[in-house]
């Protein structure tokens, strides 16, 4: 048996807990719990009314069972009953149960709110505090609605007890954090600021948390707090350690309040008032001076509290970034901590110095500690400290020390902990690129990275090195030579093979003069790795081979032999087989000129911000990156529709005949708009056509329909893209029903807030033409994340206008507002109809009433390529009928438009002529509108 607790212990509870502890197995425990649950259930259901004590005891047992990890599905009502007990201990257990096991049952919430309301108006401070705690613990919207206006009154009322004020301040803070819209600023706000002057230190400590949060959101309204905070801080800092009595913690006066005051000041720029500023600088100097004084106690609590204030003061100095003298003193102080025997202080000093490194006043001072930091990276026993050291090296890196730091990080990588390798690799790659004076050093560094930590080199990193090599002629020969040498190693990482394959495929000719790296030697070297590689790498190598045939005609027969072998041309992987077949055919039928054009060297990539940097930003908050997070990262790197396999990149490499690279060819195109996997192969050219004009970056409220027309003939793709946001669409239609998936991708590393989307139907579209039902999206879209929304569409009768999609969100502080036309057009509801020539013309003639017929001549905007046209007509949704029209130049289509109210048969004839004008002719059942609507689609 345990020591009997003070207060009113519950004997039955103690016995039960002790039974559970004596259970020898999980099964025995579950059995005991079930027995207890049955017992409690019968007591609650029994005829005899339970007394308060028993009710309290059983509710407490249920709570214990729940905290053991078991589900509890009854007892809530009894707990609510306890709330209205007059006995404090019963009420207390009731509130504890509600706080831990909050139930969204609205009936219950109303009862709970009632009990809270009674307690709040009871004028009994202990009851009031219990009620406020419950609101803060549950913090639900319903509670905020019920009490958000009441609590400020309690907080500033003159006769409220101090302890209630403290609870009210923190309760209000919690409500403000969960439902800021319900906490209205008002007359009370100015009185809250004056709580900073309150005599009771506990009230000040609680109130300042609230004030800090409110100031962050409404700095102007609260700016009077600055001078109040400075004078309060000054009084604490200059007080003797005994002045504040119990608020002195291990000889440090009011450490919590001091830190909170310093934190509040970080919401504002330096005070403008000279006197206030002078007083504050004095405080900061005193804090820095005290750090040098001998400790008043040997206890770690003393030094922790004292140093907590010191670190907070340094944060404020860094935040102001305007007092060179203080910044340098701060840096020196942190420098001392770097060598402190306390691991915690070394850790915090490394972390704090990272922010100091970005100030122009202290950057040089931070750099003087480079040897200490490198030493920390090598010798610290704790991985989280080494991580901070790596962060600091990264932050203090500039042109003057880049080579040293990169070299140290590379050598550390050889033994680095698995948990931080990926991030280290990214950092090395970024520094190498950012501070590369000569690009041969850059290439060496990246290849070293692959050699040392190949598994952790993400696609972004090796894409980037290739992009840079392609863009800079001066390094291409060196890169070819270096990868060639690197590939000589008997076991080299697959990423090395990828880079090697790509670079030799492009620039192998630059080293082919040397007989030691003749074309055939290069080819044999690459091919010796082939069988050890994964499918995507093999696909890349095949593309390199076809490039070799162009670069070095003498390798043609050898390579053709390889392509022709069963292991290639009959490979069970479709992608590999297709490449082998196509490249073999290309190499045997294309003339040298054609080959040279098709396989021309890759054109330079457009300059843009390194995507590696974006990736690192996204990874912020490293330390212990759990496996699940890494996987998440990989998923996020994946494409909109999961369709951009490496195939797209390498295929583009092989077929880079365009003068500017298409988006698919962009190696860095993490977010590139790769074709949707499910698109029909014949639509390929259409897709390229569409994707080559990526949406413009105009985050305006005007309707943007650039993406709209491209979707008339297809269902999947990118509707809109700018620097912030990418919107992709996948849609499917069956009969008169459609479903559209919208994918919103946040391209930045920053969260979008208040993200809302609304679909509206302009004019009379909603009333009788189109019915849409949407699933809503979450209001927060994390940086790099993608969210999905589903729209259900039903076509009632035919229609002309398209629905509008409005998207609003906050990026940084700025509201972004965007309206797009949703590509829902009448032709989406086409059902193709096959018919023979005879039937077609018979119906054509039947439908020749004036209102059934329409004709239009229009200029083709695009080339009149047969295949393209055919693909577009198929995309329109009709059946394309061959051998129907006597004139083979004409296109004939048939289909039925399915709406809820009727079906509209539709025949279509396109007569292209040499001047690239098109005569179009439609015959439909009954509806004249349909013509107009269809033409608008065409």
């Amino acid at each position, binding site marked *: 048996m*345990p*020591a*009997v*607790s003070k*207060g009113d*212990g519950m*004997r*039955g509870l103690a*016995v039960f*807990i002790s039974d559970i502890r004596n259970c020898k197995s999980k099964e025995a425990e579950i059995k005991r719990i079930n027995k207890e649950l049955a017992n409690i259930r019968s007591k609650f259901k029994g005829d005899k009314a339970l007394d308060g*004590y028993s009710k309290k005891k059983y509710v407490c047992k249920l*709570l214990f069972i729940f*905290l053991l990890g078991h589900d509890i599905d009854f007892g809530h009502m009894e707990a609510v009953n306890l709330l209205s007990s007059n*006995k*404090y201990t019963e009420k*207390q257990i009731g509130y504890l149960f509600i706080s831990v096991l*909050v139930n969204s049952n609205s009936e219950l919430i109303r009862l709970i709110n009632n009990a809270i309301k009674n307690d709040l108006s009871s004028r009994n401070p*202990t009851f009031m505090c219990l009620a*406020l*705690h419950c609101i*803060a*613990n549950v*913090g639900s919207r319903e509670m905020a609605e019920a009490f958000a206006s009441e609590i400020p009154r309690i907080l500033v009322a003159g006769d409220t007890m101090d302890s209630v004020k*403290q*609870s009210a301040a*923190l*309760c209000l803070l*919690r409500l403000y954090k969960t439902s800021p819209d319900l906490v209205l600023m008002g007359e009370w706000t100015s009185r809250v600021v004056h709580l900073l002057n309150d005599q009771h230190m*506990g009230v000040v*400590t*609680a109130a300042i*948390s609230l004030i800090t949060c409110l100031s962050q959101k409404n700095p102007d309204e609260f700016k009077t707090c600055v001078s109040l905070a400075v004078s309060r801080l000054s009084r604490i800092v200059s007080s003797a350690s005994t002045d504040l009595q*119990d*608020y002195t*913690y291990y000889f440090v006066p009011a*450490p*919590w309040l001091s*830190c909170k005051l310093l*934190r509040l000041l970080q919401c504002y720029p330096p005070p403008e008032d000279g006197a206030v500023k002078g007083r504050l600088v004095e405080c900061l100097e005193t804090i820095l001076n005290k750090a040098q004084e001998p400790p008043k106690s040997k206890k770690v*609590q003393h030094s*922790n*509290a004292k*140093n*907590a204030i010191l*670190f*907070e003061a340094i944060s404020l100095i860094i935040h102001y970034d305007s007092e060179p003298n203080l910044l340098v003193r701060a840096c020196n102080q942190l420098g001392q901590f770097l060598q402190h025997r306390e691991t*915690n202080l070394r*850790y*915090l000093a490394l972390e704090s110095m990272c922010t100091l490194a970005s100030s122009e006043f202290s950057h040089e001072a931070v750099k003087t500690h480079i040897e200490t930091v490198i030493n920390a990276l090598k010798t610290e*026993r*704790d991985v*989280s*400290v080494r*991580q901070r050291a790596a962060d600091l090296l990264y932050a203090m890196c500039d042109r003057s020390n880049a080579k040293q730091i990169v070299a140290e990080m590379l050598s550390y990588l050889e033994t680095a902990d698995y948990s931080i390798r990926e991030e280290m690799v990214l950092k090395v790659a970024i520094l190498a690129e950012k501070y590369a004076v000569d690009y041969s050093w850059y290439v060496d560094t990246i290849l070293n990275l692959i050699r040392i930590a190949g598994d952790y080199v993400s696609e972004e990193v090796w894409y980037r090195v290739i992009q840079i090599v392609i863009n800079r002629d001066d390094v291409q020969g060196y890169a070819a030579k270096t990868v060639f040498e690197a590939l000589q190693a008997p076991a080299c990482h697959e990423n090395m093979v990828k880079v090697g394959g790509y670079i030799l495929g492009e620039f192998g000719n630059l080293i082919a003069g040397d007989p030691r790296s003749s074309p055939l030697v290069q080819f044999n070297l690459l091919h010796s790795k082939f069988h050890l590689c994964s499918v995507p790498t093999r696909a890349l190598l095949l593309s390199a081979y076809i490039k070799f045939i162009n670069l070095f005609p003498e390798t043609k027969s050898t390579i053709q032999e390889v392509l022709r072998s069963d292991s290639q041309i009959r490979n069970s992987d479709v992608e590999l087989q297709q490449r082998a077949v196509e490249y073999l055919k290309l190499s045997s039928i294309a003339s040298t000129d054609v080959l040279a054009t098709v396989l021309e060297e890759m054109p330079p990539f457009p300059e843009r911000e390194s995507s590696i940097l974006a990736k690192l930003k996204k990874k912020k*908050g*490293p*330390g*212990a990156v*759990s496996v699940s*997070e890494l996987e998440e990262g990989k998923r996020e790197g994946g494409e909109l529709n999961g369709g951009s396999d490496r195939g797209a990149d390498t295929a583009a490499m092989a077929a880079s005949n365009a003068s500017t690279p298409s988006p698919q060819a962009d190696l860095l195109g993490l977010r590139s708009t790769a074709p949707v996997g499910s698109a029909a192969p014949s639509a390929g050219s259409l897709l390229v056509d569409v994707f080559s004009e990526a949406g413009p970056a105009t985050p305006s409220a005007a309707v943007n329909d650039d993406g709209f027309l491209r979707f008339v003939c297809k269902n999947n793709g990118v509707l809109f893209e700018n620097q912030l946001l990418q919107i992709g669409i996948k849609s499917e239609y069956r009969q008169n029903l459609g479903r559209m998936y919208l994918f919103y991708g946040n391209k930045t590393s920053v969260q979008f807030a208040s993200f809302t989307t609304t679909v509206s139907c302009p004019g009379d579209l909603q009333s009788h033409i189109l019915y849409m039902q949407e699933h809503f999206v979450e209001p927060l879209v994390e940086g790099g994340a993608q969210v999905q929304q589903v729209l259900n569409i039903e076509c009632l009768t035919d229609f002309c206008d398209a629905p509008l999609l409005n998207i609003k969100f906050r990026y940084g502080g700025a509201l972004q507002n965007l309206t797009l036309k949703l590509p829902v057009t009448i032709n989406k509801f086409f059902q193709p109809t096959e018919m023979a020539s005879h039937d077609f013309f018979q119906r054509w003639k039947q439908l020749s009433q004036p209102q059934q017929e329409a004709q239009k001549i229009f200029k083709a905007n695009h080339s009149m390529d047969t295949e393209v046209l055919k693909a577009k007509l198929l995309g329109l949704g009709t059946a394309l009928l061959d051998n129907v029209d006597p004139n083979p130049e004409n296109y004939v289509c048939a289909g039925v438009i399915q709406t809820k109210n009727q079906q509209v048969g539709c025949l279509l004839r396109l007569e292209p002529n040499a001047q690239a004008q098109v005569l179009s002719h439609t015959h439909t059942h009954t509806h004249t509108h349909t013509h107009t609507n269809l033409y608008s689609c065409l």
Partner: protein
Amino acid sequence: GMRFLLLFSRQGRLRLQKWFTPTPEREKKKIIRDMTTMVLARKPRSCNFLHWRDLKIVYKRYASLYFCLALEDQDNELLALEILHRYVELLDKYFGNVCELDIIFNFEKAYFILDEFLMGGEIQETSKQIVNRSIEASDMLQETMEEYMSKPAF
């Protein structure tokens, strides 16, 4: 502010959980698992701070119990250690030489003491005297050993 406080034993048995922001049950279970494995795997004399997701984790071992506190980015790690220490002091004062068993058998008291000290993820009262006084006040209904033993044992 603070996000959650967990107390668990060296064997990873959870002894107390306090969530300062509403958290779904499934998420709680995952966090508890992550925290116990992560903290228990740390070598002795490592530093007391970790990064986890976007939070700072501050932990400290007292006898057989680990105290583990999650902070938002702006909070001060060193003072968080002292919050843990102050909580231990309060428990110690109440139970007199507190041990793991006290917290197991009087878990509700451990919650009540915590509630006097912290609220909504912020520190409510830093004075040990004041907190102790209000805990004692809430134990108004003192009872004797005799009264305790006369209560039913089921």
